[in-house]
């Protein structure tokens, strides 16, 4: 009864009320990362989310206009069971876990964020990718009314990102619906986003509406914007500089001195084998 009123209420409430709401039944993360968590206030006030403007403060200011209900994700392409998933179903598709990940932005700053979600593989398994599914493309919402930043052609909207199928199926690759135990704040990519912790932040598409399994490597929004600056792989790599920033070091938000950047953002043990035999200077 109590639950029912809660659900009914949430239908009437403006959905900014939903942010800050606790997510139920979250399994606490088992392996503790030694890094100190970045405070929630910094995670939610300092964002790159060009759909809401290009300055770091814009998303927190402008994301209020995003409507996170109703919401669906269409999964299609090289799959046996293409389907449209409703957000409520997605939230219950697999057990929610807390995952504390380092986030490394291409602009040489970093955070440590306790995400809540489950491995993307859980979703992909349910649609049964075919043998031709070599890559996965992620498409974010396009609606300039909700996303005022899309009124300017900063990027080629909608935002597109992509992974190789083995990267997408990797257990570290997370479909996140929350952080700090709460419903994902809008400026962080609500209602549901990707988190790929060994790649630069822009690879982790936000506010996803479509997932396509495809045979050819997709062209992402950032690759279109700057082909020699942003590659398809975009693995965190201190040895390969971006023309504008050295990637050897990073500033952890909240710290003064820069710290050395780790290969694959510190996840080399888990993911380096995905790239064995590849020249990562060419495949940046």
């Amino acid at each position, binding site marked *: 009864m109590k639950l029912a009123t809660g659900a009914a209420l949430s239908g009437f409430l403006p959905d900014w009320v939903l942010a800050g709401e606790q997510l139920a039944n979250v399994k606490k993360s088992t392996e503790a990362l030694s890094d100190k968590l970045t405070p929630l206030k910094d995670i939610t006030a300092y964002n790159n989310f060009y759909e809401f403007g290009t300055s770091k403060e814009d998303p927190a200011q402008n994301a209020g206009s995003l409507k996170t209900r109703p919401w669906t994700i269409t999964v299609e392409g090289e799959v046996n069971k293409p389907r449209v998933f409703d957000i409520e179903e997605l939230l219950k598709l697999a057990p929610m876990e807390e995952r504390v990940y380092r986030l490394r932005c291409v602009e040489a700053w970093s955070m440590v964020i306790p995400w809540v979600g489950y491995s993307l593989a859980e979703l992909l398994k349910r649609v049964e990718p075919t043998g031709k599914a070599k890559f996965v493309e992620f498409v974010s919402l396009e609606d300039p009314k909700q996303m005022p930043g899309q009124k300017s052609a900063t990027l080629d909207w909608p935002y597109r990102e992509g992974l190789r199928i083995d990267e997408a199926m990797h257990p570290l690759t997370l479909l996140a619906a929350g952080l700090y135990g709460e419903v994902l704040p809008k400026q962080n990519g609500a209602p549901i986003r990707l988190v790929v912790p060994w790649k630069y932040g822009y690879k982790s598409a936000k506010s996803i509406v479509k997932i396509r399994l495809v045979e050819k490597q997709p062209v992402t929004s950032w690759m279109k914007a700057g082909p020699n600056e942003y590659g398809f792989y975009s693995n965190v790599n201190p040895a390969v*500089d971006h023309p*504008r920033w050295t990637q050897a070091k990073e500033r952890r938000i909240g710290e003064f001195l820069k710290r050395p950047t780790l290969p694959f953002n510190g996840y080399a043990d888990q993911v380096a084998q995905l790239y064995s035999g590849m020249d990562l200077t060419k495949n940046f």
Partner: protein
Amino acid sequence: MSLKKPDNKIIAWIKIAVFLLALIPVLNLGISAYIDNLGANPIEKLTRSTGFWTLTLLLISLTVSPLRRLTGWNWLMRLRRMLGLFVFFYASLHFLTYLLLDQFFAWASIVNDIVKRPYITVGFPAFMLLIPLAVTSNNRMIKLLGGKRWLLLHRLVYLCAVGGVVHYWWLVKKDLSNPLTFALLLSLLLGFRLIYWLRGLNIPLIPRKGWQP
């Protein structure tokens, strides 16, 4: 009171007002730093804000002489030295933020930046150009150099402004609207000078008696 020739007392007040106005950005940063209100990445905020005000004040100081030309208010020139020194002040803060806070004396990484990051490759000499200008900004140095040579030296400021705009253009990741605005304003200011120069209507350094714009 005439706007064309306000008396010295009024000019003194105008100078004080401009001085206080030009201090607002640094006071604002100082207060924000004190109450811990610089956001999640305070060093980035300081770097960007001081860079922004360096270029803004530089363009404002380059507006003085065209404005005098258009209005005939010769007294405007008396604000120019102070404005120029404020440019140097904010540029120094910008450079020091980079040196002390951003890099914390990591010399190898600084040299690497100057060599490998195009926006710093132009920003660094643009800053260096301002040093001789600041050093020669007092009356004694003007006398020592002689007006003509002093004037020639201070033309370096155009190079610095172009460098500043290119620096901004190259550091922006995707959204070029701000650097574009600065580039347009600078082209206007330099274009104005070019037109006068092409027409042989150079503005005299020290207005001759009876000189009319």
